[in-house]
């Protein structure tokens, strides 16, 4: 009995430790955005301080962070929308039909997930420059499909498989066509799967630095992570402002992730569902 109590205490301490390790950097970032330059670097660290919000005002005014957030929002919504539109039916096709080439099709999606970005980036850059599409956000929406579609398919095949087949057969007997069954019966049942793939694909699209760095470097079209890059390499880094910018860049995806955390915890099966 005593052994069990000790185990439970250690178990709880372990979990608390994990929480601290995960949350501390986040706390440190937000705290730094509210401190003054000298407070950020004071040794020993200042744990109690009066928060200043002027760094946020500076980041928004001087670096057009809000414009970058808007660009990221457009690209993220566009690429996730397109990815779901073509990816969800594909996942249904793979989950529900037995057809020749099914394995190859599935492997093709996963291969695209494995695709190293530079392979795609060089031709995209060259083609986009020839067509004068550098600094056009549509190019990002398209190029992100390389990882959005595989992710959507990968996660949603499991979801469609978990829909009881009897339900579909009954709907078919009621006169619904194949596509009707998919649209009216299956799709509403896999909402959690849609939420997980949308938020994960959204996270990766929002967070991407490399593609945006090469394809949309212009100041008016740059995406949120690019803000971070502009601070790099300068001789003097204005840390409070940098951390304020960084907090604004991360906030939407972190909040989005937290909102759907329940679905993520359940839906992240990656083909491992029984």
């Amino acid at each position, binding site marked *: 009995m005593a052994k069990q109590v000790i185990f439970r205490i250690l178990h709880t301490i372990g979990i608390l430790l994990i929480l601290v390790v995960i949350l501390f950097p986040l706390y440190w970032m937000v705290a730094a955005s509210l401190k003054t330059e000298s407070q950020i*670097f004071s040794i020993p660290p200042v744990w109690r301080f009066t928060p200043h919000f002027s760094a946020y005002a500076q980041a928004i005014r001087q670096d057009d962070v809000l414009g970058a957030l808007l660009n990221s929002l457009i690209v993220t919504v566009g690429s996730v929308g397109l990815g779901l539109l073509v990816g969800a039916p*594909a996942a249904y096709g793979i989950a529900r039909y037995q057809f020749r080439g099914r394995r190859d099709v599935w492997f093709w999606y996963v291969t695209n997930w494995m695709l190293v970005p530079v392979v795609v980036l060089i031709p995209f850059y060259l083609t986009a420059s020839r067509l004068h599409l550098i600094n056009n956000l549509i190019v990002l929406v398209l190029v992100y499909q390389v990882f959005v579609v595989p992710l959507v398919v990968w996660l949603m095949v499991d979801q469609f498989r978990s829909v009881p087949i009897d339900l579909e057969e009954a709907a078919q007997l009621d006169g619904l066509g194949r596509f009707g069954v998919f649209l009216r019966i299956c799709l509403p049942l896999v909402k959690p799967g849609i939420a997980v793939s949308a938020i994960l694909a959204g996270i990766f699209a929002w967070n991407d630095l490399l593609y945006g760095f090469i394809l949309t470097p212009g100041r008016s079209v740059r995406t949120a992570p690019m803000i971070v890059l502009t601070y790099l390499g300068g001789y003097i880094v204005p840390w409070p402002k940098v951390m304020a910018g960084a907090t604004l860049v991360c906030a939407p995806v972190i909040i989005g992730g937290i909102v759907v955390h329940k679905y993520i915890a359940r839906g992240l099966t990656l083909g491992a569902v029984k």
Partner: protein
Amino acid sequence: MDETSVVPMTGTADEAIPVPLSERLAPWFFVAPSLILLLAIGLYPVVFTFVISFKYWVMGMGAPEWTGIANYLSALGSSDFSDAVVRTLVLVVISLPVQLVLGLLIALALDSTHIALLRRLLQICLVIPIAITPAVVGLLTALMFNQQLGIVNYLLGRIGIAPVNWLGDTTNAFITVILVQIWEWTPFVALVLSAALATVPKDIEEAAMLETERWWPRFRSVQLPFMWPGITAALVFQTAFTLKEFDMIYSIEKGGPGTATEVAMLQIERLAFRGFDIGVAAAESILMLILSIVLARIYIRLFYREID
């Protein structure tokens, strides 16, 4: 995979019954739009890159010319590239097993906690490192691992460890990258494994509970078999991720000090977009692609058998 759930609604699996054409085309109707999109966005660029990998092409230095396999020879002969590939593989080999072991421990801790609030809190927190922008993680690393003024060295100092030159020393900078990568991606692995753990049927778990009190045999013969597909999936996913790693490392110090943390993506990016040597960069990209597909093939041979 439970076979009954993938059996089609009509007998397409049974070759003896003639299947109407419309029925045979039905799956393609669902799959085609995304296939066409990926052919245009995934396959076309690969072919394009493959073709220019046989050309001498330095941007701004005249028209590209055919040079045969010269770019590949130059890529394979360049220590910049081979060092970067080795660094990338070292990152995979060190970081991935640690992520898997820690992720498994966290998944088990999450599964076995009796305090609902704690479980909820942990589930929420595991999402945070996944969501946080890698470029911001890199920036935060530069701040927190600063030698004189960083919080990491301060905390280490409190327990009597002398300040470490994390980012200025070539070996330490690489260790920092590994540590940060583990911080960033272990929660993701933990969530995948936790979803896999949830697939263990409750009645089997309870029966095992009656069988033995000891944890290890229960884990090994009841939970682990159900978790293999999840473990392999996490492995495929994360290997790809590590091979593609760019944002976080670039934002710490652009692959520095020197080229100490320059992994493959950074090196190829530098060559193509700052050195403008498109031909050699294309050849290197193709070599990386071959490496990642070989790894994917190996994994999926293990993996797809499990899910089909």
